[in-house]
């Protein structure tokens, strides 16, 4: 694993992970208070995947996101204020209040969008990869999907297309052990998800998804290879979502022991402890960063709550270019 040399990078990764965590905790609060309506699939616990994967990208690379997309949007460089406002359906949101949590995307950051349809980004990612090839750039597309999405037909069709045409698409499979309530064991004939890349002629590796550097290293290697024209790959990240699938989820399908085990593998704790141990950051640095992020989130929340809803006339705008 590549050693972390500079403090700036360490702070950047930690800050992004903290932003995602606190953003999600705040959304949970807002849902409980009915300030946020509707559903939200929260990314808390999985921060190292988005932050590590995005650390391997350039700003002009693309991602396709999922229904659990807040973390991807933040890590790809979306502005907290606009993301928070979008989740509340406000006019100042990055999608003008028309998308919401399930369709969260600051498209100016190369995020092709969160998706209400499980597997909805898969074919799109193939197309973005094809476009890169046809336009002859060295961009790449990261396609984020959950373990559950690997059972959709479009997963297999898309990987076959990308594998056949050797497109610069890297699949980031967030294996958090469940698709809603159904465990990988009960949903997938193959539980080693990296094997699902094999028939489509692409390399795959499984990494501990709570380790931001492990994710970054694995994704970086494949990104480099894809930029050089060597085609697609898959990184399976073993991870865990802390909250229930949605607010009303009583989580009867998983055990307290399992939840406790994963709570001990907290990506933010693991990384900050490592940084302190290696002398890159002091405990005080970590605490100050945490406070700084808290302020950022407070500000974003205030911005979102104080923002107006869209004008009624917006109902009919934006349908066609």
């Amino acid at each position, binding site marked *: 694993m590549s050693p972390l040399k500079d403090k700036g990078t360490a702070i950047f990764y930690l800050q992004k992970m903290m932003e995602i965590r606190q953003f999600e905790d705040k959304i949970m609060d807002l849902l409980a208070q009915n300030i946020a*309506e*509707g*559903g939200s699939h929260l990314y808390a616990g999985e921060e190292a995947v988005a932050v590590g994967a995005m650390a391997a990208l350039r700003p002009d690379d693309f991602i396709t996101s999922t229904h659990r997309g807040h973390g991807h949007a933040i890590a790809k460089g979306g502005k907290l204020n606009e993301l928070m406002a*979008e989740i509340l*359906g*406000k*006019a100042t949101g990055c*999608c003008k*209040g*028309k*998308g*919401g*949590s*399930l*369709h969260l995307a600051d498209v100016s950051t190369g995020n092709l969008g969160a*998706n*209400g*349809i*499980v*597997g*909805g980004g898969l074919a799109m990612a193939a197309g973005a990869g094809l476009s890169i090839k046809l336009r002859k750039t060295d961009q790449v597309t990261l396609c984020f999907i959950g373990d*559950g*999405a690997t*059972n*959709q*037909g*479009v997963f297999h069709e898309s990987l076959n297309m990308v594998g056949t045409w050797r497109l610069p698409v890297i699949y980031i499979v967030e294996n958090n052990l469940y*698709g*809603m*309530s*159904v465990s990988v064991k*009960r*949903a*997938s004939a193959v539980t080693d998800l990296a094997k699902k890349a094999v028939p489509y002629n692409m390399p795959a590796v499984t990494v501990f998804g709570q380790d931001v550097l492990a994710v970054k290293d694995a994704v970086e290697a494949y990104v480099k290879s894809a930029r050089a024209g060597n085609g697609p790959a898959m990184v399976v990240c073993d991870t865990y979502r802390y909250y229930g699938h949605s607010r009303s*989820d009583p989580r*009867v*399908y998983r055990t307290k022991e399992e939840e406790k085990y994963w709570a001990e593998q907290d990506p933010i704790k693991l990384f900050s402890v490592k940084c302190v141990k290696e002398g890159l950051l002091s405990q005080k640095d970590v605490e100050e960063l945490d406070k700084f992020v808290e302020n950022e989130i407070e500000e974003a929340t205030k911005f979102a709550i104080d923002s107006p*809803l*869209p004008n*009624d006339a*917006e*109902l*009919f705008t934006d*349908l066609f270019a």
Partner: protein
Amino acid sequence: MREIAYWQAINEALSEEMTKDPGVFIMGEDVAIYGGAYAVTRGLHAKFGDERVRDTAISEAAIVGAGLGAAITGMRPVVEIMYVDFMGIAMDQLNNQIAKIRYMFGGKTKVPLVIRTEGGAGRTLGAHHSQSLEAWFTHIPGIKVVMPSTPYDAKGLLKAAIREDNPVVYIEHKMLYNTKGQVPEEEYLLPIGKADVKKQGKDVTLLSWSLTLLHCLKAAEELEKEGVSVEVIDLRTLAPLDIDTIVNSVKKTHRLVIAHEAWKTGGFAGEIAAQVMEKAFDYLDAPVCRVCGADVPMPKAPNLEKLAIPNKDTIKKAVKELLV
């Protein structure tokens, strides 16, 4: 009579039919341990076990298509698609396989399959979780389409759908699950393909289904106080269409307003309007009026979501405008 919730009525129908017929089984995403995204199948997994209440992978095409395969080989599946919005993934199975197989093979097979799903707006879930797509299904010959608005209808129609030897798309509404209504303890079935005249009236016929029907009843009640006599019809089944009940009502009131949450363009109201024109043109004193969803993807913003679908007031306004 006892009152139970809409979700409970559906749950009872499933439980009763599974008890009665060992060929009936349920499969879908999160229907077993979780009890369904809207908790409709809660308790059934504990009662009937893994074999008959099956959690599937997230594979809508296979869920719906496997339902067909099981149905034509001796079982009576009830498959669940969590949101009607996800039916797009299964549309080839529905359109090319399920709807056509009996006809294509000269009537030599039966398809006793129910596809339960759920649609509609109201929870600010945005464009992929709020749609009303019934017109996709009514367009296809060979499928029955049921959309109950009350617990009583939900139970009686689902039991009938499970006993049907034809494919039925049975669409619930997410904002109806906790509504309550009278449902008898004793067993009953309701005929698929029969509309229900909810309220007699003489000035105008107001036709709807699913959640919007409840808005129509409220609108009619208020209009009554303002001196307008409204006949309200709950279509309950869209296909086959009970056109006779509609035409008979129009012959009496001479005016028809159709309200539904689905998009106006290509929505099922258009089909009904055309049939009423064909069958009762001379009885109409005004053009058939449609109060429908705005022709846009459902926006997230709560104010825009409200604006995008009919409500009591927009329905009232349309009725009044038709009467002047």
